[in-house]
């Protein structure tokens, strides 16, 4: 049972790797996955003395676009600041971030009828990647450092503590990730491209959980932390204010030694970097480049294709490629409702089963539409259609070819079906009796049996016709 004292609020700090080609302050490539450690570095991102940062304009552009999409107010003058701390992930002993005058503030993002406030958005450099050797973060003998990641531009988005359930957090993050993908500012496939710190406040205590990477981990981390805090309160204890570290292997959080308070970071403006003045024209030019965003796309799908809002939402919020797939199908096949229904049920189910996204699969709009067309033509039954979707997703083999090769076309020979029906009636005397006693639903059972006997190839309408005749 949940009582009032156990109510909680959650606020997030989300770090997203911006999808630039080069790093924030130097020309090193951001394409770091699968390369040798410390092979994409230069004096600047290694923090060598005398090196100077040079701002990547595209990172600022992306920041402005995201800030606009999240209804934020953009500061006309922004500056970079140095955040001093002594971890080996930042070799110059400070991280270039923002503090006094960040990129933007005061926005919101709407999720199911609720607005989540955005407190601020800032641009900063990613630290290097640490590998803890001989233990975990608190017990390792030493750390190995890879500075390939150091200097990749991050957008830090800080929300108000407006979340009251983990479901809301999930919805918010998926929507945010989707918007950034539409803006081209973010690629979720890049490793560790979304990292989250969460603040959970219950009964007055505020706990910050760090090191949460990606969507799924958020849910585990928050669920664990909420239960942990609730248990403390039920035992009559008090939740202490502290920072905890999420361990994705055990799905638990653990206390970290008290870290520095904000004033201990000794923020100072970075005099190596000039002011960034953002005027109306710059913002307008970028606004013109903002493409149709997910919510608008849902609305357009409902209006233009007359599909249900529910289907439109599922299609758009599955991922961008999935929504593009829908539109491509509609270009070559004039029945959007059919396309939508098949996509949100059978296609999505098969993709999920195979744990792939539409663009990772070999499914093409042409092949998918072929299945629907074959059903329209009466060439195959709906049941075979479902089977074909499964096999198309799993193998990538053209559905029409499968049908030709394996002879899956609808059985139309009335005599052949009559034979099947006769057998079914003989084998299911109970159902026949039920039907005759007035249980008309029994016929569905018999149709099912007959369909199964034909391997799903019979036309159910024809089967019903024959059955009705025989049962008279």
């Amino acid at each position: 049972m949940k009582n009032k004292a156990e109510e909680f609020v959650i606020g997030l700090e989300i770090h997203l790797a911006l999808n630039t080609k080069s790093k924030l302050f130097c020309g090193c490539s951001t394409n770091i996955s699968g390369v040798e450690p410390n092979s994409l570095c230069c004096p600047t991102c290694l923090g060598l003395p005398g090196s100077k940062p040079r701002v990547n304009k595209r990172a600022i552009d992306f920041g402005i676009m995201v800030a606009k999409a999240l209804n934020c107010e953009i500061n006309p003058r922004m500056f970079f600041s140095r955040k001093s701390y002594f971890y080996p992930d930042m070799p110059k002993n400070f991280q270039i971030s923002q503090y006094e005058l960040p990129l933007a503030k005061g926005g919101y993002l709407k999720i199911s009828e609720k607005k989540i406030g955005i407190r601020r958005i800032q641009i900063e450099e990613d630290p290097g990647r640490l590998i803890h050797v001989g233990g975990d973060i608190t017990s390792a003998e030493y750390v190995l450092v890879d500075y390939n990641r150091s200097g990749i531009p991050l957008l830090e988005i800080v929300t108000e503590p407006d979340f009251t359930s983990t479901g809301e957090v999930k919805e918010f993050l998926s929507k945010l990730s989707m918007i950034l993908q539409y803006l081209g500012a973010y690629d979720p496939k890049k490793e560790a491209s979304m990292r989250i710190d969460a603040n959970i406040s219950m009964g007055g205590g505020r706990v910050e959980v760090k090191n949460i990477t990606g969507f799924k981990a958020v849910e585990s981390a928050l669920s664990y932390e909420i239960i942990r805090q609730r248990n403390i309160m039920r035992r009559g204890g008090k939740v202490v204010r502290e920072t905890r570290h999420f361990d994705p292997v055990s799905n638990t959080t653990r206390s970290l030694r008290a870290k520095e308070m904000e004033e201990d970071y000794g923020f100072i403006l970075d005099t190596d970097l000039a002011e960034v003045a953002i005027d109306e024209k710059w913002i307008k030019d970028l606004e013109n480049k903002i493409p149709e965003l997910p919510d608008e796309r849902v609305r357009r799908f409902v209006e233009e294709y007359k599909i249900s809002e529910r289907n439109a939402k599922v299609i758009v919020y599955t991922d961008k490629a999935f929504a593009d797939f829908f539109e491509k199908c509609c270009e070559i096949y004039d029945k959007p409702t059919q396309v939508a229904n098949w996509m949100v049920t059978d296609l999505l189910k098969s993709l999920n089963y195979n744990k792939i996204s539409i663009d990772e699969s070999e499914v093409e709009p042409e092949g998918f539409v072929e299945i629907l067309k074959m059903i329209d033509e009466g060439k195959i039954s709906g049941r075979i259609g479902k089977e074909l979707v499964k096999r198309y997703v799993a193998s990538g083999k053209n559905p029409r070819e499968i049908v030709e090769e394996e002879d899956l076309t609808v059985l139309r020979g009335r005599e052949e079906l009559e034979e099947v029906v006769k057998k079914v009636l003989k084998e299911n005397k109970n159902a026949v009796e039920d039907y005759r006693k007035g249980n008309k639903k029994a016929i569905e059972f018999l149709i099912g049996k007959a369909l199964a006997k034909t391997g799903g190839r019979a036309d159910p309408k024809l089967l019903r016709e024959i059955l009705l005749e025989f049962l008279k």
Partner: protein
Amino acid sequence: MINKEIVRHVAELARLKLSEEEIEKYSEQFEHILEAFKILDEVDTEDVEPSFHPLEIKNVFREDEVESGLSQEKALLNTKHKEKGYFKGPRIV
């Protein structure tokens, strides 16, 4: 007022190990330094725009283009603390 506690805290943030005599000495010196800077408080800045940067330059950017950097070997050249292409460092917490 500067006391030993503040000096200890600042030393810890800067990862400096100070002896008791040094803490004593710096407490006094900190006090003098702050005293000296107090002169700035006497300047009337009522109608003066805040200054964030010594130079009045703005919007100095680089285009988003990849440039070549250092090889792994060169990146690790100046350290003896290395292993399998990584830098070695102390545990962080």
